[in-house]
């Protein structure tokens, strides 16, 4: 697309949450929020999106920063993925998110891309989403009619569709503290060893008998596979349970054939990655 100019738009850069709220309330469908712009700009270049107003959220101070508190950690909507990669607390306590951030696109893109942008783009292949699902994240949303918190599991409504109303925006993502001893991890399957969109992504969280597994690129939205959780309350050795967990995968997902991968291989790999991630977290060698 060398030299193809972006369609014309007005650029706005509010400095406060209130200002941002007011802009959205006024322009609604004609405005698009931009954090890193790594999804928005290519879509505009391809004329898939033609917003009249591009509203840059990076000027809003309240959207910056990763803050820890008694309840967990709060990641502002303008926080870049590289900031997450560099965060000690996220690496140690919320490893699934950290490992997903590390796998998201490449170093250059990560310095612009944001976590909030990744969830708002609502791609079925979004790397951060399975991790947020297993960690039980909440999305803090601000709109013309006030604030609300949306559990991440209710945030995704379909391919590129979210629960956000036209006047709403994501202020932050909260990740609650996990029980002591909880461990989590994300694993991504790609066509190359460098940068690629996930063919399948699997995140898991293990905390005592509680096991949660979520996946990307296997359904219209990132999905939890709740059946897997039940397996670990049942009988059997860990290895047997892991095998049973993997057997739950095909029933919990509905992947498609596309130019990157066949559904059959996606299903297979979702099960393989589930086993691998669970073995790693449960310390089962094979």
């Amino acid at each position: 697309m060398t030299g193809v100019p972006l369609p014309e738009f007005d650029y706005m850069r509010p400095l406060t949450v209130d200002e941002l709220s007011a802009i959205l309330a006024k322009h609604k469908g004609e405005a698009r929020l931009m954090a890193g712009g790594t999804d928005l700009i290519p879509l505009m270049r391809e004329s898939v999106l033609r917003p009249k107003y591009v509203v840059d959220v990076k000027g809003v101070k309240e959207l910056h920063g990763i803050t820890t508190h008694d309840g967990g950690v709060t990641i502002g909507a303008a926080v870049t993925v590289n900031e997450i990669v560099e965060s000690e607390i996220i690496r140690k306590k919320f490893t699934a998110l950290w490992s997903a951030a590390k796998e998201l696109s490449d170093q250059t893109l990560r310095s612009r891309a944001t976590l909030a942008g990744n969830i708002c783009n609502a791609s079925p292949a979004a790397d951060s989403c399975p991790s947020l699902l297993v960690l039980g994240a909440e999305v803090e949303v601000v709109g013309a009619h006030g604030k609300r918190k949306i559990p991440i599991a209710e945030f995704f409504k379909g391919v590129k569709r979210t629960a956000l109303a036209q006047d709403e925006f994501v202020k932050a993502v909260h990740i609650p503290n996990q029980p002591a001893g909880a461990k989590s991890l994300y694993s991504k399957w790609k066509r190359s060893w460098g940068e690629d969109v996930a063919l399948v992504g699997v995140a898991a969280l293990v905390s005592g008998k509680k096991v949660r597994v979520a996946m990307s690129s296997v359904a219209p939205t990132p999905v939890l596979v709740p059946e897997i959780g039940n397996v670990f309350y049942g009988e059997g050795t860990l290895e047997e349970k892991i095998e049973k967990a993997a057997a739950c995968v095909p029933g919990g997902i509905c992947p498609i054939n596309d130019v990157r991968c066949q559904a059959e291989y996606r299903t297979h790999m979702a099960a393989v990655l589930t086993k691998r991630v669970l073995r790693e977290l449960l310390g089962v060698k094979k």
Partner: protein
Amino acid sequence: MKGKVVGKNVTKTDALALATGKPMYADDIKLDGMLQAKILYSPHAHARIKNIDTRKAEAMPGVHAVLCHKNVPRVPHTTAGQGWPEPSPYDAVMFDNKVRYVGDRVAAVAAETEEIAEGALKLIKVEYEQLPAIFDLEHAMDDGAPVIHDEPDSKYVIPVFFDPKRNHCAHIDLEAGNFDEGIKESDFVVDHKFKNHYGQHCALEPHTCISYFEPNGRLVLRTGTQVPFHVRRIVAQCLEVPERMIRVIKPRIGGGFGSKQEMLIEDVCAMLSMRTGRPVRLVLSREDVFVSSRTRHQMVIWLKAGARKDGRLTGINMRVISNAGAYGSHAMTVMSNCCAKALPMYKCDHIKFVGDTVYTNLPQAGAYRGYGVFEATYPMGVAMDELAEKVGMDPVEFWKINTVREGDTHPIFEKLGEVGKGVAMKIESCALPGCIEQAAEAFGWKEKRASYPKQDGKIRRGIGMVCTVQGATVAMIDMGAVFAKMNDDGSFNLLMGATDLGTGADTIMAQILAEALEIPVEDVLVYPADTDLTPFDKGAYASGTTPVTGMAVVKVAEMLKEQIIGVASEILGEPKEDLFLKDKGVESKKTTRRVEYGQIAKRSMYAKNQFQIAAIASNASKAPPQSYTAQFVEVEVDTETGEVRIPKYVVAADCGTVINPKLAAGQVEGAVLNGVSYALTEEFIFDKNGRVLNPSFGHYKIFTTQDVPKIETIFVQSYEPSGPFGAKSIGEVCINGPLPALSNAIYNAIGVRFYESPFTPDRILKALREK
């Protein structure tokens, strides 16, 4: 051979300017009044244009010209950038009243902006009459198959087979020795059908042309091409103007790999300038590059080969069907090279070859690094591995006894060249046995071979090897010329038509001249590839620049040397025989007196017996000197996921004298990555109507620098008398290895042979399940 400059890692002449983003590529200039061009492509695989209405597009404000078959001359030509007369059929016209694949040209627009041009394309109303299409190369010649080139004016301009009524674009058959007799002596025979897949070159710079008129009315084409002189000739042909009206300038190029050995967009760009009198810029989008430029030839190859108990090859029978796609650019020559340039590595007296190239309603194939040798090395490399196993011989031994040595000749050399009959040739330089030994040693072949059969677990290691060859130049056709002159300070301008497409050819030529004239390399000012200012060169293809143009540089240096010594003799008052070049000066053997180049230049320009010290030299290829490699690869196949990882890749290459080790190693590593990427991930995905579904880097995955396996490169030098300071070529020979080497290594790891590419994880998994 090691010299003062030859054999040294001289920095590329353009490195600093390119690295600092100086405006050096075709698209880096903006001209006043420059229009933007866009092309309308066919949505159908095969259709007749019943009517095309461009009136609305023409009436759109900002639109300056619309081209389609109704308003341009119909001049059958080939887009293949080859020597004249071209060995490819004249089956293309600028715009036709028929489209032959999804992505074929229908019309073009020049407008004030790209947006207006895009908008105008949407206003062009085309009424198509859809025709049945054929996509399967194995059925293209069937009775009743739709005829893709039913126009009466397609033809070859050389006397070769052509039967477009049967979609039969090219045919070659020959036999050296007697295959049927030879194969009877076999104790072991392999006989398989192989198939490789559609792939694209993926040069980072898309096809780019800017055309404009000089004040004197001549048309300049600033274009990213491998073949500036062929482009001038073919554009002149298409526009029906004399060649003298056109000047082609080749700026720096962001990679070609064969996709730019074409007159691909220049005719349209030039015609739009002619119609509007304005500068016109035409740059293909990445999607256009994938769909509407050129691809690798997809081939089906049946290979039957045999060996005796002692491991000697008895016979090779290769039957090729090559898919040209919709037009026959390079159709015959790529197929011809499956035999002409691939088989003369194998010591075998009985070789039979039958090749057919067919038209289908798929994207156009063309030249692509490896050029037929790549496609044929896949079956040959796998068959060699399989025969070695049947004979019970270590593949290293098997390859060694069945490949050529220095001093050998080969029956194929005379029987077939890239174009028609070949030339008899004795192999003057061959370090292949050394390549095999040194690569095996560095790889740890023996140890790995001993330990790998005893494996269990999910990850299986495996090893594989192949040898590769690439004959350089199109013998008896290719020519390159260079002009050099001396400046006041004893530096030299080197003007040449040779086309550095990012490979470093300019630097190599500077090194050769510097070595021959005893000067530092920075004293050579290379000016490449401008049809007005530089002498003719065939262009960058057939691994030809170092052997062909490099030798022209050696010749020009000899001529300059004679003139320099002549002047020095006058200054020193000593006979020429006593004088020799040293450190940018001339010294006397007898008296040790010395005169500097600067003095010589100034005298010749300003003082006595004045003349410009300058020379022009030409070099034509008489034979195709062969470069060789031995390639060893180790794989880890994950039997749970089908993933293939490459922990180690060793290449030992014989490219004669290595002029610049770092640039040569870059060619080796680049070619290996190129080949590995093709083997493991790249492929075109078509829908049932022949549309490419994945024309983007997001969907057509190529390996990047992050995916480079650990490659160890060893140069085993030979000395090629026909090349500059003994040098041969290195651009293509390495890409021929990865496909068969990986197939062999995967077999070694999991016991499944892949006769069809690519080797993607899902296919490997499927094969494991079916095992």
